[in-house]
């Protein structure tokens, strides 16, 4: 292998590498373009939106459509319903999973193995097939068109227990034994040792559970028939007369619906990606 040859190959390598990098960056911009285009269109007056030319920036910047969505539609109620139900799903799922995960990881009790297998098995069952029976159950309980009715069937997230068990398993036994020596109760051990040591994973799991619940469509769509009880994902697509055939208005409502989760992702980018890789069974 001679000197000049390697220099030449290296240069060719770098050139190809640079080209790949450039293509990746261009592809990323194109990939996200529909999001940009949706936002920009929502900021144009309706007559400018339907012009047959491509204008990447509005000639007249207007927030009228947002004003319309916020004042003339029920989007305020939809926001409230989404916030309440998503927070409810998140809080109940994360706390019950944390308790169950702790019990399975740290305590020995009859039925422990059976419960663990049941959780692993339920990981495989598609909740979509249960929509009929969820609907019948919620109707019999009188919970259709209510927050509780939207929340309850969304509480099956076995993966959160699985992640908690893995993390609690990794806490060194010394911590537990020291606490037991001090005569600390199980509750104290859980809340003073195990929970604080795993705040990171709790935060991550809470954020993604919130995003899942906010984005849920099928169940909230079935559980609610009254427009004022709809979540935002259902309301912006199912209430036809709310927006009419005004593209910019529809898009402004879509931007409002996507904004909270997009913000949550951008603020907690690393936590979100960590939780998502964890939920697929890969250690982040």
């Amino acid at each position, binding site marked *: 292998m001679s000197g000049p040859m390697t220099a030449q190959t290296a240069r060719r*390598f770098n050139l*190809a590498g640079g080209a*790949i*990098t450039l293509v*990746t*960056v261009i592809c*990323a911009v194109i*990939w*996200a373009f529909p*999001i940009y*285009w*949706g936002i920009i269109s929502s900021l144009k007056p309706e007559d400018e939106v339907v012009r*047959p030319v491509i204008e990447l920036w509005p000639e007249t910047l207007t927030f009228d459509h947002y004003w319309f969505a916020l004042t003339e539609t029920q989007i305020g109620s939809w926001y409230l319903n989404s916030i309440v139900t998503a927070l409810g799903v998140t809080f*109940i799922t994360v*706390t*019950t999973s944390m*308790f*169950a995960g*702790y*019990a*399975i990881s740290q305590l*020995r*009790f009859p039925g422990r193995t059976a*419960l663990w297998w*049941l959780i692993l098995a339920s*990981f*495989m*069952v598609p909740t979509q*097939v249960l*929509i*009929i*029976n*969820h*609907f*019948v*159950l919620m109707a019999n309980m009188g919970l259709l068109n209510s927050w509780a009715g939207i929340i*309850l069937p969304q509480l*099956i997230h076995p993966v959160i227990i699985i992640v908690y068990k893995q993390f609690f398993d990794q806490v060194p036994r010394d911590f537990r034994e020291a606490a037991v020596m001090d005569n600390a109760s*199980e509750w104290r051990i859980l809340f003073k040792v195990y929970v604080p040591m795993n705040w990171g994973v709790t935060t991550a799991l809470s954020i993604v559970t919130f995003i899942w619940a*906010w*984005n849920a*469509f*099928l169940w909230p769509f*079935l559980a609610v028939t009254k427009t004022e009880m709809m979540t*935002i*994902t259902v309301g*912006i*697509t199912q209430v036809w007369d709310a927006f009419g055939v005004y593209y910019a208005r529809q*898009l402004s*409502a*879509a*931007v409002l619906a*996507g904004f909270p989760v*997009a913000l949550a*992702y*951008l603020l907690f*980018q690393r936590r*979100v*990606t960590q939780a998502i890789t964890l939920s697929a069974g*890969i250690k982040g």
Partner: protein
Amino acid sequence: MIRNSRKESLIAYALIAPFVAIYGLIFIYPTIDMFILSFQDAPLIGSGDWVGSDNYTRLGRDRRFGTAAWNTAYFVALSVLPGTLVALGIALGVSRLSGRLQALVLALFFLPYILPVSVVFRLWDWTLNFQFGIAMHLFDWVGIDRVPIFKVTAWFMPAVAFVTIWWTCGFSILLFLAGLRAIPQEIYEAAALDNTSRWRTFRRITWPLLWPVTALVLTIQLILQLKIFDQVYLFSQGGRPNDNLVMVYYIFQRAFVNDHGGRAAAIAVVLFFVVIIVSVLNFQLMRFAERRQ
């Protein structure tokens, strides 16, 4: 260490009680109820007569069931493998970058995955709008006649698959990136010393070492896309829903539009078993992948 096992059990039961209560009510009971309902001639709400396996045998000559099964398989074929390959390509590109540029580029690719399906629907309904959509300029430029994409059966599934790949790709990209990061850097350094070409490096090192993650992504995607409903439903609004039926859509239609609870439950049971079988294979693959890692 002395352990009071009875006390420990009691505490454990107290801790698992909320979960078990919810799980029993929302998961175990509805699952059993689904099987019972599938043998009855019942409406959505209310009781019906026991009809044995009638609801199942009827599926054999049910044209809408045939359409739903076919479309689901077609959609899986259009989305799973192409989506996985696109994600792999993007992950390979992103993994070459570093620092802030990498974070930015990854965010651009990942952002769609975070959005609710309703927003994805609005964005693409607008982008691909027959009259005013920006993508139609692309059609004009290439020289294809403009089509109302979501109103034409031949275009519908490919277009929904395309939008689905755009929407869900971010998830697979993350898994591939985690897989790529797990490959020791020394192997690449050794290959670089030997002047191995880029393609050979990929074929001989990256691809084999990444195979467990690829298998994982493929099976997760497969299970996910078998359960597709939201996008198909939303894009079918005002179009031709009966031509675009997929399994979950048909369950919804039978139960909530035709008010046939029993017959809908039979379709649900079929989908239940399809997903379970695929998931068991997935579980085996995951264990296999873990052992390899």
